[in-house]
């Protein structure tokens, strides 16, 4: 019997079209636009000026607070301007635009692909290197990794969970990373274990990636303390709380963090980035992005420099299909439609999904028939239909009492609703408003 989380969940069509496509390196773009706010928390402060020359891996914006991350140049060249362009948030945000000239890397970065297995750094050194490299959670939430590794006083982590679930349909970037960079991933996991001071790590992988499970299981015998756990395919298993419940059967209470039950969860992408940052001195300036969709000519997994315009990725995968309805950054469940094809790839961009006109648009909203499907599938045990009704009527205190802040925005409720009701939209609205009210209350 394969493990999974017990409450709720859905199984959308997997559509992992690009699963067996090896990672290709996307040619350097002519110009990149690097957003300074690619993470949760304060935007980074720009420390370069127009006409400055930069090298690959050079810091161009420094962390704007504790919950923030450094931003590095992903190319070498000249700073063309500092402007505002549409990014994945749907708004024009500050970006540093760099004209690409050659490909000159910072001298400290080790360019060779040789595996460095020996960990010769102390806990503090590892943490410092991760902070400097500007690593954020690459699963999509982009929470700065060094903050997650700094365990608050009085709490203790006893297990590290590496998230190789990739439960979003279509996306295969983590899958490919696990297949092609397996040893690096293992070393990265050990680095994270050392930084956290734990001696056990479990990599959770869903059962639709048998090749990755097999490869990593064989490999894990050579790495002390790392185990592989195969999981039943169920969305949203990649959610931190669901994954903890599935793998070690601990339940994170409402309003608490995984560290409260002694667990810390990191994505496989993050573990690989940590390996590169610590062992190769390479900051986070490129990532694997899946470009996919049913009508895309050649779906691909691309290694992309941060700041590359989305259009370039689509061109590499055979161009924009004629019947494209929406271009989504991320997966179909939690991703967000882009409003400009010039939006740059950011640290949190795990995939670019092209949906056709038939797939993309929402069907007509009908009345709620009280079938309670949304209640059945909610992995957090909420009542989405009720939250939506209360949200439409703007009764924020009721919404708070109904634990709207527990919602992980997985979208399972909107996915199963037979009346196509915009459940998640109103829940997000409620989270936004209730969040404001809670912050106001705290500051008073």
């Amino acid at each position: 019997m394969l493990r999974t989380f017990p409450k709720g969940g859905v199984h959308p069509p997997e559509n992992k079209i690009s699963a067996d496509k090896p990672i290709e390196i996307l040619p350097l773009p002519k110009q990149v636009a690097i957003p300074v706010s690619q993470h949760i928390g304060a935007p980074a402060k720009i420390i370069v000026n127009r006409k400055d020359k930069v090298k690959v891996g050079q810091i161009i914006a420094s962390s704007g607070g504790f919950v923030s991350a450094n931003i590095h140049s992903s190319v070498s060249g000249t700073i063309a301007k500092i402007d505002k362009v549409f990014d994945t948030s749907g708004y024009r945000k500050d970006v540093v635009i760099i004209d690409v000239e050659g490909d000159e890397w910072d001298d400290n970065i080790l360019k060779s692909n040789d595996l460095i297995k020996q960990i010769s750094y102390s806990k503090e050194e590892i943490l410092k290197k991760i902070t400097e490299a500007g690593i954020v959670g690459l699963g999509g939430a982009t929470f700065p990794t060094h903050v997650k590794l700094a365990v608050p006083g009085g709490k203790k982590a006893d297990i590290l969970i590496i998230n190789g679930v990739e439960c979003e349909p279509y996306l295969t970037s983590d899958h490919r990373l696990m297949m092609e960079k397996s040893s690096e991933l293992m070393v990265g996991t050990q680095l994270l274990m050392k930084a956290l001071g734990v001696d056990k790590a479990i990599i959770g992988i869903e059962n639709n990636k048998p090749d990755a499970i097999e490869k990593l299981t064989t490999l894990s015998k050579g790495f002390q303390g790392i185990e592989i756990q195969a999981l039943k395919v169920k969305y949203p298993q990649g959610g931190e709380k669901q994954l903890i419940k599935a793998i070690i059967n601990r339940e994170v209470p409402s309003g608490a963090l995984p560290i409260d039950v002694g667990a810390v969860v990191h994505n496989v992408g993050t573990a690989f980035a940590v390996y590169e940052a610590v062992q190769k001195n390479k900051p986070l300036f490129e990532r694997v992005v899946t470009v996919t969709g049913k009508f895309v000519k050649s779906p691909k997994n691309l290694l992309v420099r941060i700041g590359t315009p989305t259009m370039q990725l689509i061109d590499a995968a055979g161009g924009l299909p004629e019947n494209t309805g929406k271009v989504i950054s991320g997966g179909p469940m939690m991703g967000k439609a882009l409003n400009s094809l010039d939006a740059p790839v950011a640290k949190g961009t795990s995939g670019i999904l092209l949906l056709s006109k038939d797939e993309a648009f929402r069907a007509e909203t009908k009345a709620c028939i009280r079938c309670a499907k949304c209640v059945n599938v909610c992995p957090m045990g909420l009542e989405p239909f009720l939250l939506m009704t209360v949200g439409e009527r703007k009764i924020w205190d009721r919404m708070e009492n109904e634990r709207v802040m527990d919602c992980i925005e997985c979208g399972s409720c909107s996915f199963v609703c037979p009346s196509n009701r915009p459940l998640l939209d109103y829940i997000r609205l409620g989270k936004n408003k209730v969040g404001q009210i809670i912050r106001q209350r705290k500051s008073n």
Partner: protein
Amino acid sequence: MSEIVLYTILTVTAVGVTAATILYFAAQKFKVFEDPRIDQVEEALPSANCGGCGYPGCRNFADACVKADNLDSLFCPVGGNETMAKVAKILGKEVAQQAPKVAVVKCNGQPKFRARINVYDGPISCTIEHMMGAGDTACQYGCLGGGECVEACKFDAIHMNPNTMLPEVIDELCTACGACVVACPRDIIELRTKNKKDRKIFVSCVSQDKGATTTKVCQVGCIGCSKCLKVCEYDAITIGNNLAFIDSDKCRLCRKCVDVCPTNSILEIGFPPRKLKKEDSGADINQSNA
């Protein structure tokens, strides 16, 4: 038989009298003194319960008026000076006259001026659309057309114009309670001092983008070029964040700024039509309200 009737009457009367006595003393003991002036003030208020004064309803406002030492920070925008004078008379306090205000929608991004580059197919709610991104046009500051201001108005003073897809304020009905200002997630609506004959001059744009970006996304956006600033003789105009702002308290309605504005983002409303130029400007949009 008659005995039963008699006993019943006696018992019920006894219970009644006892209960009445208890209730009388209870009422005396737990009596809450309430200033009778609160009722009087409440009577004088418009009973709109709109919350424009900052209190949850008219009764709470009346209570605040009675308890306050002076009426300086209290004002009922719906009733205006007339009501406040009545309130002041009841309470024997002084009240300063305040200039009446009116809500003004500061966006002129009609479809003909601002192209739709995207399709938004989510629920019709400005706040939700605002949370998702810039909306279906490329302007991330302008009106989304979801009509949350219309929903918020208790006086039926604001409506969506189906042609312009923008909200319009009916000046006679607007009480300047500020409900629409709060409802708008993009802070497009402003309360401005009312002028004679409902004449208005204002910058109908809130875009803080650089001029180059603004011209790309909307033909009538303010580009912050400062031409109006230079021509204004009354220091009514300030420029900040690539956006001009006309202070309605200082503006003397000379209309010089309207003439120099290169993007027609300054609107003049309620003026008699000019002889030659400006027929194609955005000034005709709200003309029907004048």
